[in-house]
């Protein structure tokens, strides 16, 4: 029962943790730059670019004008929106480099043509190879006036998709330029992100940073985790009560043994120590076995269900495993109380005379 409870709790929490983890993994590309789009006035982009270029507190490596259109990627809780960037041809290699990636199959998109490069993770997620269609005229969420064909697949862990900026300029609306700014040193990117957010706050600009994404992902699941805590708390109480009853029955069955041993000359303290050692081994062993089973099953789920779709699942998520800790702790405490109550009024003579059994 301990094994099952621990396995269940660790498994469920790992799977739930995989949702915010997926958000952070899928949109991890935004760690590499800060993106800015104007609001209300499409002609503000050059102005904001100038501010960033001239006043940035860190050395910039590149600032690039981009366009964006939408596509949907799959997650274990449904489809999520994802940006297909429109890049200048001269920026494509740099972008791939910043993503620690290179095209391993196919080629880069030609200017103005409905062609895209996607990451290997997206290729797995959407089941698209070279020649596959990324955006279509008849798909509302992954729309493009022409079928956009995958012409290149890039390796690495980052998720991304891009076409030529010329294709997006001609085919996608609204007609607004955005820009991305890359710090020269990736270590300075966070500083640049924070500075840009502060600098453009209150202006007609929307700033996109990885920090915002992380924050949103964390707040988005606050209520879910509160519900999860209540569910797990209830589960722990129920399992502990059941285990308490089982331990009580188990000890009652051994009362005769303890009575006999005490009559023969074993001390109450020694017997108590023996029962506590047995209980500790039982509880800790059950917990470790439960963790091992959970780890094995999660790895199986990862290999069979998650990896083929590039869904994120951390099978060594210690926060998920630590959620199961209240199970052995509560059972151990209940066991201690049960053992203490049993031994408190223990009369070995009553046992061997068969008055108490």
């Amino acid at each position: 029962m301990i094994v099952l409870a621990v396995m269940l709790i660790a498994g469920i929490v790992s799977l739930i943790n995989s949702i915010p983890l997926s958000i952070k993994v899928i949109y991890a590309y935004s760690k590499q730059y800060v993106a800015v789009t104007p609001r209300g006035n499409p002609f503000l982009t050059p102005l904001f670019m100038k501010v960033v270029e001239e006043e940035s507190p860190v050395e910039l490596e590149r600032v690039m004008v981009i366009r964006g259109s939408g596509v949907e990627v799959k997650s274990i809780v449904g489809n999520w929106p994802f940006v297909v960037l429109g890049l200048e041809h001269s920026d494509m290699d740099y972008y791939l480099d910043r993503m620690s990636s290179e095209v391993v199959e196919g080629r880069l998109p030609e200017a103005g043509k409905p062609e895209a490069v996607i990451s290997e993770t997206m290729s797995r997620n959407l089941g698209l190879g070279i020649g596959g269609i990324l955006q279509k005229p008849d798909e509302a969420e992954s729309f493009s006036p022409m079928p956009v064909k995958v012409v290149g697949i890039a390796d690495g862990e980052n998720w991304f998709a891009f076409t030529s900026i010329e294709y997006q300029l001609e085919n996608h609306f609204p007609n607004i330029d955005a820009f991305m700014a890359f710090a020269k040193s990736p270590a300075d990117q966070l500083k640049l992100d924070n500075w840009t957010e502060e600098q453009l706050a209150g202006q007609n600009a929307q700033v996109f940073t990885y920090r915002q994404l992380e924050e949103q992902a964390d707040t988005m699941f606050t209520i879910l985790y509160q519900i999860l805590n209540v569910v797990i708390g209830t589960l722990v109480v129920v399992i502990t009560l059941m285990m308490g009853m089982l331990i009580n029955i188990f000890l009652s069955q051994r009362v005769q043994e303890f009575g006999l041993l005490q009559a023969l000359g074993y001390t109450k303290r020694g017997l108590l120590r023996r029962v506590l050692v047995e209980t500790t081994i039982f509880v800790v062993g059950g917990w470790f076995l439960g963790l091992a089973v959970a780890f094995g099953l999660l790895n199986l789920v990862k290999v069979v269900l998650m990896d083929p779709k590039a869904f994120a699942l951390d099978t060594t998520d210690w926060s998920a495993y630590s959620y199961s800790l209240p199970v052995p702790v509560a059972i151990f405490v209940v066991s201690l109380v049960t053992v203490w109550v049993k031994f408190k009024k223990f009369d070995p003579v009553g046992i061997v005379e068969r008055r108490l059994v």
Partner: protein
Amino acid sequence: MISLERVSLVYEDHGREVHACREVTLDVQPGEFLGILGPSGSGKSSLLYLMSGLKVPTSGSVHWRGDDLAGMGDEVRAQIRLKEFGFVFQYPYLIGYLTALENVLVALPGEDRVSEAERLLTALGLSEHMRRYPHQLSGGQKQRVCVARALLGSPAAVFADEPTAALDHTSGRGVMGLLNEHRGAGALVVVTHDPVMLEGADRVIEMEDGAIVS
């Protein structure tokens, strides 16, 4: 060796005061076979538990080799029971998950007594049953394992409380014979209501209503 002086044991049973022993004075000599005879409820078992330190008298004193058992701590009394005394109870209590041999070794934990336990079991006619579990043994065989357990380590005194009660007459006499034969130099104190089981006893005392009557 064991000396009881004006020992009384009084306890409450459902609000009623029960005098299990009344001012009993008695000595047990080394190597002596002492029989305690009496009807049910006469206090003979209570007297045995007082002599063996399993119970503490309400008044009077029990001395083991000159030391007052009641004045010792629980742990010291337990140690004396473990090292110096052997016990055979009315019902052949054995630990279900241990073999006959392991059940005998329970008497002296942490000591290497395997060959002695094997010798005792063989002497008690259980050489073929040493590796068997209690559920594989008959009542008489179980009680013989209990006898072997009581005799392990050649205790200074063996206390037997109605050791033949759960056995038929022939098995009972057999067990008593074995107990007497293999106790070595140790004293043997046997409580029973059946005088036949005390054949060979050096001394027999009779109890009635908590007091020695003869």
